């Protein structure tokens, strides 16, 4: 669809309803979205105790960027987003291929891979916290059968962030798989037949047919999981609360802790920063990915 087209449709809609028809939605939008957005921009410039506030200009932003754990939080956020997003693309693609093949009980298997998506994140977090307990968790018990002493998954700073990322992938890969299934199913069978006629083997068919033609699915999965990873909070909070110490802090958990400590202005400034950060990464990315799609 070209931009020309989009403009055309928008103008057509504008003529359909009189302006009072938009009023209810506009009021809801104003109260629930517009007002809080501007209020938060304002309060990010104040020192705010909920009982009173004083205007301090950009001091909160200066403070936020000089937070010693913020740098770590930013690095962790990026690592977490890239690792989870990348794993979801690769695993989702492989599972998508498996579950569009003529495998037995395909419907059931598809349901099973999607099941973790439906479970509450906090519940998953608490369950895995128990499974990953260093001395009496199931995972290390199983590893111990082979005579290996498993690490402290969530409390060793070397493993903690990746352990949480692993659980995030387990929980989220179902959605990626479903998107890939839809993408792969929509590829016309003729392409595969033609490729076979040309003598392409399985790997070549995957590389030259499935991969490029499932591109829209890949774009969707990357963008969705990257946004999810950048603003991830619930799973990390349920499993490590940013710990041990600050080692699994991400931007969102830094902001939450500031809010908890009563630094309301500062944490609001943090949210403004997070908003800008997510937008700065995702908008260009989506632009680049979508443009290539048009060119292809």
């Amino acid at each position, binding site marked *: 669809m070209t931009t020309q087209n989009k403009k055309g449709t928008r103008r057509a809609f504008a003529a359909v309803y009189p302006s009072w028809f938009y009023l209810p939605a506009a009021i809801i939008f104003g109260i629930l979205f517009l007002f809080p957005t501007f209020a938060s921009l304002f309060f990010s410039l104040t*020192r705010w*105790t*909920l*009982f009173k506030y*004083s205007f301090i200009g950009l001091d909160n932003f200066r*403070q936020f960027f000089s937070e*010693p*754990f913020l740098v770590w939080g930013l690095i962790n956020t990026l690592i977490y987003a890239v690792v989870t997003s990348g794993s979801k693309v690769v695993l989702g693609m492989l599972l998508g291929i498996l579950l569009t093949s003529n495998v037995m009980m395909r419907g059931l298997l598809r349901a099973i891979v999607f099941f973790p998506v439906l479970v509450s994140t906090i519940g998953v977090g608490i369950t895995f*916290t128990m499974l990953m*307990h*260093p*001395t*009496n968790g199931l995972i290390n018990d199983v590893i111990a059968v082979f005579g290996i002493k498993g690490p*402290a998954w*969530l*409390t*060793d*700073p070397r493993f903690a962030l990746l352990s949480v990322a692993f659980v995030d992938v387990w929980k989220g890969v179902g959605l990626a798989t479903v998107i890939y299934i839809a993408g792969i199913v929509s590829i016309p069978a003729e392409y595969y037949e033609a490729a076979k006629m040309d003598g392409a083997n399985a790997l070549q068919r995957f590389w030259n047919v499935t991969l490029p033609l499932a591109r829209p699915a890949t774009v969707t999965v990357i963008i969705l999981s990257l946004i999810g990873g950048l603003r991830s909070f619930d799973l990390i909070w349920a499993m490590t*609360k*940013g*710990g*041990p*110490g*600050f*080692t699994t802090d991400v931007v969102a958990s830094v902001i939450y*802790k500031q*809010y*908890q*400590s*009563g*630094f309301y202005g*500062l944490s609001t400034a943090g949210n403004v920063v997070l908003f800008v950060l997510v937008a700065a990464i995702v908008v260009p990315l989506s632009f680049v990915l979508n443009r290539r799609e048009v060119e292809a």
Partner: protein
Amino acid sequence: MTHAISRRLLVAAAAGSALALSFASSAFAEVKLTFLVDNAPATVKASEALAAAFHAKNPDITVEVESRPGGGEGDNIVKTRLATGEMTDVFMYNTGSLFHALNPQQNMLDLTDESYQSDIMDTFKSVVSENGKIYGAPFRTTMGGGVLYNKKIYAELGLKVPKTWAEFMQNNAVIKEKTKAAPVIQTFKDTWTSQLFFLGDFYNVLQAAPTFPDDFTANKAKFATTPAAMKGFEHQAEVFKAGFLNEDFGSASYDDGLRMVSTGEGAHYPMLTFAIGNLFENYKDNLDDVGFFALPGDDAANNGLTVWVGEGVYGYAQTEHPDEAKKFMAFVASKDGCDVQTEAIGALGPYMTKSCTLPEDVPSPTKDLVSYFAEGGKNAPALEFLSPVKGPALEQITVEIGSGIRSPIDGAKLYDEDVRKQALQLDLPGWE
């Protein structure tokens, strides 16, 4: 036609129910108060016992106990409810630095002229007052921050309660060599438990640097540059480095810690003595195997305890029933109130009401605690009662120091930064 009938019916029904409502409220002139407390089992039990005993004395007032999480999450709930005008009639909250952050003059009932004030110790009044007005009534007992230890292990190995840090480390070495027990228990799943080596050392800090609290509040003294104030961080790092911790220190919880120290899986657990209430609740059979001592410093002759004044009960300024709320607070602060609490959760320490007494047969750790308040015992308040400045990230910093992720000096510098934010938020002079 149908229209008219249904409307008439509707009006009649509405009038009827309005009548019924007004009748109900005039027939039962009963007042219901809500009391917000933290959700630690011992707190809830003591609060419910107080509510029941108060109702028995005042049948026209019912007190309903509502619980909320503790720690930072609880602070947040209390602040938000105050700011949005949704606070309960009476609520429990910390005294000292956290109390000041609630803006008491605007949010709390003034209790200065209550008749029971002469029966309350000055120590308590000073930590629930602002600009000469008293806002809180004492709830529960004074606590000590020190070390809960397993007396059976001490008896078996013939160890003596340490009076200096060096003796403490020696005891740990003996325990490590001769038993399977962990010499020192740490439970970083509940991050707040990691702060005791640091916060509980404040009696010793005060002996070496008596002006530290005032200088610290005025931004003239820093932890990183005050050697005495660094000791707590350094001790915590030493214990980790020596390999004295329980294997699962990173994922063990507060309750695990209590189990370990009471059953002898571990020997020492740095903790606040309110834990005696949880021991009483969950490990009653082992309670008398547990003892308590102050965190030792360098000087055996000057060994003393860091003390936390107990929580306060506060009345919400905008409650619809200020008189009943004050009546309830008066009951909590009375000798009867103390006795009800002692019966519900055991005798945990000295009460802040002068007429309150402890029974003869207090649990073993309480006996040790009380000795620091008796003739010849030494104690001093924790820093949070001498300075309004307390950094919110301390528990993460002590977790890092206690698990070898960060060095003590780095941790101290980080904490000095953290504290600055709080001082700015409180608008204290000398900070920017």
